[in-house]
């Protein structure tokens, strides 16, 4: 709980320098200054995660299974060998500070102080673009009491133009921008404490794609948009700076995500020098081409076209296996329009309810964001008009003073000046308040962005389900074909060599497909579990974030309203003689 409220607000009247000092002091005693992760919030998270601690472990186990099955990571990833399951399982137990629920937040929660007294002091400050992490940021530790607090600090800076030296026919070649990405960490897996690499935006896209594939069902923070602009615009400083800021925000969000931050993909991205070893996302066109090439073969040699178990770990869409893609497409049509219900379907009522609520929430978020925007505009207008009024009075004051013939005019001019100065100050205060308000409302936008991640995670689930359903249909059709063949060949004594061979092939196919089916079901369950955990996590985070946002917003409203009131009260005091005169 906050201390007596009256203690807080008078502090607002002190100078900026003093505020900085206080910041320093509080910094020492409190590890967290991120407005989104205040102490209380971390505690909430800790409690949330503390309960499904086992869930965390089992998730890790399924991650490890997945990893061992995954073959698409290129071998250069051997630098960080696939982490054996036990390591993953133990890492959270030992070093994940989120699971230390025993921390009590100190009474002087820093979020208010940050909010009021340092309007431009962002607790997660953006680096100033010079490669320096300008302020200390502890992202994931609930308090300095925990000795094994982990951190992963990232900053993006120093954009530079580089030329694509490759086999381009056009002289001069393509130019692109790279950014310096500096990381500082004490996470053991990283095998070092400071790293510095150069990456271009394409690399970020690759990272994001690999994460989507590797972490299906997880609410992965969405990456910055690709911008479809001319190359000239691409090189303009404003654009580059904007992109740098977005990249930094994105990477920091990844580093904050309890699951993603442990990913190999992120680690590789942040640490490996030179060319990034993650496999690039070959664009859809060439994949389609590849798939189209394979398709005729698949159709002709039908019995061979089974879905390998490891393939089911990826969605059909966007993959090379066109036949599989078409089969799943057919299955989805059957689902929607067929007469019978599929054997396995989304029956998790909880999930369905949650989904409904989330989409509703999305609507409300959009609405709230719109209203927030008008509020910001209204505050800005207010500040402007107040300022204009002040200026008009200042002009009047000068005028009266210059033209004064009678003393009463000078008196009036002095009164007017008082009012004018107060109006100008109030205008400035409104503007400051607005700057803070904008920052608070960032939370809304963050969460709106996260909705996209939620959409993706839920569609991971439905496409995995579709895979399962498709395989089941496949199996049943294989079985019926096998049956037919059996009954047909049993009529011929001794059997038909070709038929027998066909039957053998079918039995093979059935076996493989069974395996694939089990794999697909496991994958589906894994994704479901991810969804569930993430949904819970997000709910908790969202709740905490919104409470903090509102707290911050309300606190700054209080602080600034009081300051504005004080300014006017002074004027009222100085002009009170007119009131007294008029009353006697």
């Amino acid at each position: 709980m906050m201390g007596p409220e009256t203690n807080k607000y008078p502090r607002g009247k002190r100078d900026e320098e003093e505020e900085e000092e206080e910041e320093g002091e509080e910094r020492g005693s409190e590890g967290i200054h991120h407005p989104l992760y205040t102490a209380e919030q971390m505690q909430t998270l800790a409690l949330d995660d503390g309960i499904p601690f086992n869930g965390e472990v089992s998730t890790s186990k399924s991650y490890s299974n997945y990893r061992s099955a995954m073959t698409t990571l290129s071998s250069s990833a051997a630098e960080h060998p696939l982490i054996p399951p036990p390591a993953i399982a133990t890492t959270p137990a030992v070093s994940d500070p989120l699971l230390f629920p025993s921390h009590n937040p100190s009474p002087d929660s820093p979020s208010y102080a940050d909010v009021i007294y340092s309007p431009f002091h962002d607790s997660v400050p953006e680096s100033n673009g010079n490669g320096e992490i300008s302020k200390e940021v502890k992202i994931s530790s609930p308090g300095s009491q925990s000795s094994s607090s982990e951190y992963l600090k990232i900053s993006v800076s120093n954009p530079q133009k580089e030329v694509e030296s490759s086999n381009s026919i056009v002289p001069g070649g393509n130019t692109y921008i790279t950014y310096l990405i500096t990381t500082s960490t004490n996470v053991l897996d990283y095998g070092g404490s400071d790293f510095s690499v150069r990456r271009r935006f394409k690399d970020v896209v690759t990272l994001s794609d690999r994460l989507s594939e590797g972490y299906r069902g997880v609410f992965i923070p969405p990456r910055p948009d690709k911008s479809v602009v001319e190359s000239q615009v691409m090189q303009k400083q404003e654009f580059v700076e904007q992109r740098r800021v977005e990249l930094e925000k994105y990477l920091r969000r990844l580093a904050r995500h309890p699951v993603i931050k442990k990913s190999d993909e992120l680690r590789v991205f942040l640490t490996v020098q030179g060319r990034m070893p993650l496999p690039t996302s070959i664009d859809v066109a060439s994949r389609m081409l590849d798939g189209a090439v394979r398709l005729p073969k698949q159709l002709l040699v039908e019995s061979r076209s089974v879905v390998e178990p490891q393939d089911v770990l990826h969605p059909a869409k966007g993959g090379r296996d066109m036949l599989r893609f078409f089969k799943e497409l057919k299955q989805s049509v059957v689902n929607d329009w067929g007469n019978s219900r599929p054997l396995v379907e989304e029956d998790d009522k909880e999930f369905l309810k949650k989904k409904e609520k989330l989409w509703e929430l999305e609507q409300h978020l959009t609405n709230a964001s719109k209203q927030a925007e008008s509020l910001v505009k209204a505050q800005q207008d207010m500040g402007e008009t107040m300022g204009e009024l002040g200026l008009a009075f200042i002009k009047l004051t000068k005028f009266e003073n210059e033209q004064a013939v009678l003393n009463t005019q000078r008196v009036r001019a002095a009164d007017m000046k008082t009012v004018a100065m107060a109006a100008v100050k109030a205008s400035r205060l409104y503007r400051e308040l607005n700057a803070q308000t904008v920052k608070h409302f960032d939370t809304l936008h963050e969460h709106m962005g996260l909705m996209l991640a939620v959409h993706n995670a839920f569609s991971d689930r439905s496409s995995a389900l579709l895979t399962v359903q498709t395989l089941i249909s496949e199996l049943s059709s294989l079985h019926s074909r096998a049956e037919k063949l059996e009954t047909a060949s049993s009529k011929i004594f001794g059997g038909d060599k070709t038929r027998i061979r066909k039957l053998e092939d079918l039995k093979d196919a059935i076996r493989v497909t069974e395996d694939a089916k089990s794999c697909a079901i496991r994958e589906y369950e894994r994704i479901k579990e991810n969804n569930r955990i993430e949904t819970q996590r997000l709910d908790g985070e969202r709740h905490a974030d919104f409470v903090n946002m509102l707290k911050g917003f309300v606190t700054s409203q209080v602080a600034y309203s009081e300051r504005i009131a004080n300014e006017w009260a002074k004027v009222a005091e100085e002009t009170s003689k007119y009131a007294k005169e008029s009353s006697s």
Partner: protein
Amino acid sequence: MLNDISCRSRKSSPFAGTASCTPPRVILGPARLIRLCENKHDITTINEQQKSGSAPFVGSPRSPSSQSPYLKVSVSDPAKMGNGVQAYISYKVSTKTNFPEYDGPEKIVIRRYSDFVWLRDRLFEKYKGIFIPPLPEKNTVEKFRFGAEFIEMRRQALDVFVNRIASHHELQQSEDLRIFLQADEQTMERARSQETGIFLKKPADLMQIFKGVQSKVSDVVLGKEKPAEESDPEYEKLKNYIFQLEDHLAEAQKHAHHLVKRHRELGQSLSDFGKAVKLLGNCEESALGNAFSELGTPPLDEFEEPLKDYIRAVQSIKATITERANAFRQNCELAEAIKFKEIDMNKLRITRSEKLGEAQHEYEELKADGAEAARRFEKIVKLMNEEIIRFQEQKTLDMGLAFHEFAKGQADLANGIAAAWRSLLPKLEACSS
């Protein structure tokens, strides 16, 4: 004390904004106020003016029953009359006085806006040199809407108008004022319809006008195009001041007007945001949502009206400046005419014409007129000098009070907002722990 009056909204500048139970505070004279409380028709102080004019006025006895002369007026009870295009608003004008010229200590009459206009025009005619208190705008379009706020603001402005007249040492003696305050409706209507500039002027005045035109024409013909104008540098300075002042005030008033709008918009968007946040679910957010809607800001018309009043007063001064210029020109023209007449007369004397007698008669008349014009002009000058001082002092007090009220209003508003927000913090705390 200004806070005496038991009304919830403590609006106390001359033209408080909202239509709800607002006791209008009226600012008059350089040093004293008459406070009128609509609800009680209870006039608690009077304004006793000394006849000396510009000197600060001495304090006033409180009780109406004292023997010193008093004249108290109030404008109240606006009522819509008539239908459609013919519709207008009528006001009740109540007078309490012990002036001997008035019949009876109390009188109530019904008047409409054009009656007030009549009064203003009459006073303007008769009391040249005095800054006639300004009337609220005509607003022919807006009056059709007859919004409650508009009617109330107009009523207050009319109330102030009449009281300023009643408390001006010269104007309060006006017969037209007496007619306005006392006459029955037919008389009033007759008087009002007669007031149309030209028709009111005596034939002699008409001649003056023609003569004026004539001399102007001859001037032009003779190449003396420049109309006579005062060249007193101090007066020039004053005129400059007045004109520039109006511009400055207009700008300030524009922003004050916008400020009202901004306050309203801010209140609205706060409440909309609250509603949107409420939908985001959970206990604290709905509590917040409610609080947001309660934070709607009250309209703050307080500051705009005093500025508007200031501007109107300046415009009234401009009208007086015009009058002075007219009087000056008349004076000059008559002086010229007298000179020419003299020359004529001398000519006639030499030729021993029989027209000499007639010419002499005319000459005498001209001289009398000339003396009259000179007197008029000098009176205007003297009055204006006094009036300017009175105006400046009055305005300092008016604006001082207006500033005070505005500052208080802003402070109270901001404090209210701070308190309302603060009350939410414990709830938010509870929700996060």
